[in-house]
């Protein structure tokens, strides 16, 4: 029996109302989101960039300070997972379906815009750099800080696994702190719900393109899209009804295993020297320019430049914020027993290095096709961004097999993300219950599906991204408040010995 507390009721009402509005008036909601996000991103661009750089700075300071020796848990706790398995789970949780979707497509999209002013050869390197910046240290610092706050307050100070718990713990339980905490939980729930809804839409677009490529279809209609969506909904409802335990981790690891196999396949069967050259150059470009780029606001650019900056880098940072409470809870749960230093360095550096290889390899293969062949890859990147990954795979041996594997992997990434998100949403909306009722999880699964459907009906990735940004923007204030809570609590820790 589901007990409706006020937070659950309000959170369900708000997210269901957004979903219903979107289904009844998809174009209207998408346009409203686009305009609202445009105003917010224009006025807050400097603050968003400064916040991302500040969060990275805080993470580095905490990691190298004596606080880095503090255990996330009791001093005698030991990590539950081996370091390799811990890192694999980190990649799968934080990147998921976006990796497959944007691997080649994103660098080429940047390239289309900057090849004129920069020249094609220099633009290729810059495009790879901007892509990895969007998926690198700054992104993972947002996840790391949110996860660290949740892990520290839950495992070290014994609080409930809620966004509001650190606020009430640090500032005391008063009417004001409880209200702020309640609002923070609500904002986290809305950000997660809309963020995962966007992920469902991206997954469906990706799978549809894969089905088109497999069966030689040309822009299959809404019927195919909705069939894929229905199959996804059925697939994630079962694990919500029946606890599959470690089965979910197995599905997630399978999706990540397929992605890694594709990475090695493309590296070995593609122009390996060109790809490795691109990767090595990218490593140098990234580590020498990431800090400076974190403060770049493109204020003096023309409208085309600022639009590009808003729709990519700023949108990504807001996207990471949307996913932060969800991924934060997940990485906190798998990190008990690690020191703060291990946690921060592992969560920030390992996925960034992985992103360098991932985008270096898939991006370089795209640039090889664009710069050294007559293949129409740039036209595809401009006209149908969802189809780029499959176009690349069609140029390699056994395309039917690799495309099928991408479709399976995207399917598994979406299913595992929705199941985990429904669990986290259930936990947040039932005062931190570590085993939320099945009814609550299924309700959240339904809401996530409905939000995904809204973004699918908009039939536009940019509309989906505007909606995600709209849901996540207020959460930037919550993350900063959580950072203050963490710093105040850490001040009271006696310096731990290494």
């Amino acid at each position, binding site marked *: 029996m589901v007990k409706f507390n006020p937070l659950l009721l309000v959170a369900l009402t708000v997210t269901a109302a957004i979903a219903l509005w979107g289904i009844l008036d998809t174009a209207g909601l998408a346009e409203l989101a686009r305009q609202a996000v445009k*105003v*917010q991103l*224009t*006025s*807050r661009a400097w*603050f968003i960039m400064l916040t991302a750089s500040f969060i990275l700075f805080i993470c580095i300071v905490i990691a190298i300070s004596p606080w880095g020796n503090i255990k996330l848990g009791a001093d005698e706790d030991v990590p539950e997972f081996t370091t390799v398995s811990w890192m694999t789970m980190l990649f799968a949780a934080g990147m998921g379906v976006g990796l497959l979707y944007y691997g080649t497509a994103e660098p080429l999209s940047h390239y289309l815009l900057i090849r004129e002013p920069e020249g094609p050869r220099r633009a290729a390197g810059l495009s790879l750099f901007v892509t990895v910046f969007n998926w690198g240290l700054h992104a993972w610092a947002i996840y790391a800080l949110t996860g660290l706050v949740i892990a520290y307050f839950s495992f070290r100070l014994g609080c409930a696994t809620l966004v509001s718990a650190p606020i009430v*713990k*640090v*500032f*005391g339980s008063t009417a004001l702190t409880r209200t702020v905490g309640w609002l923070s939980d609500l904002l986290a729930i809305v950000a997660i719900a809309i963020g995962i809804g966007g992920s469902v839409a991206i997954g469906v677009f990706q799978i549809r393109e894969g089905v088109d490529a497999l069966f030689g279809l040309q822009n299959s209609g809404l019927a195919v899209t909705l069939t894929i969506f229905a199959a996804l909904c059925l697939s994630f409802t079962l694990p919500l009804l029946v606890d599959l335990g470690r089965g979910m981790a197995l599905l997630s690891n399978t999706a990540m295993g397929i992605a890694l196999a594709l990475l090695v396949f493309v590296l070995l069967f593609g122009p390996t020297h060109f790809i490795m050259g691109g990767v090595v150059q990218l490593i140098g470009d990234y580590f020498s320019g990431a800090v400076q780029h974190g403060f770049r606001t493109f204020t003096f650019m023309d409208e085309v430049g600022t639009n590009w900056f808003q729709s990519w880098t700023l949108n990504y940072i807001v996207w990471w914020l949307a996913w932060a409470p969800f991924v934060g809870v997940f990485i906190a749960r798998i990190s008990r027993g690690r020191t703060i230093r291990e946690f921060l360095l592992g969560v920030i550096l390992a996925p960034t290095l992985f992103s360098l290889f991932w985008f270096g390899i898939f991006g370089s293969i795209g640039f090889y096709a664009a710069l050294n062949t007559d293949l129409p890859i740039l036209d595809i990147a401009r006209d149908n961004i969802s189809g780029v990954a499959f176009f690349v795979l069609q140029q390699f041996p056994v395309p039917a097999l690799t495309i099928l594997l991408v479709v399976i992997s995207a399917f598994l990434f979406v299913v595992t993300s929705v199941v985990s998100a429904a669990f986290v949403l259930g936990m947040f909306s039932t005062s931190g219950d570590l085993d939320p009722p099945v009814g609550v999880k299924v309700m959240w699964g339904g809401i996530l599906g409905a939000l995904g459907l809204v973004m699918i009906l908009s039939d536009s990735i940019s509309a989906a991204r505007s909606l995600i940004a709209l849901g996540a923007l207020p959460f930037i*204030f919550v993350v*900063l*408040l959580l950072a*203050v809570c963490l*710093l*105040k*609590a850490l*001040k*009271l820790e006696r310096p731990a010995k290494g």
Partner: protein
Amino acid sequence: MNELHDTLINIQIFAFVGLLIWLYSRPSHLEKTSRDEGAEVLRDRED
């Protein structure tokens, strides 16, 4: 871009940053609790 709207959004940001700095610098409930617990431990030891 509506200048007034832009100004209001940015005032909101400045106010929030000011609030964070104030919250960070003032003694918190957790610090008071921790101080009280420390004093209690000292008293117990003296006893």
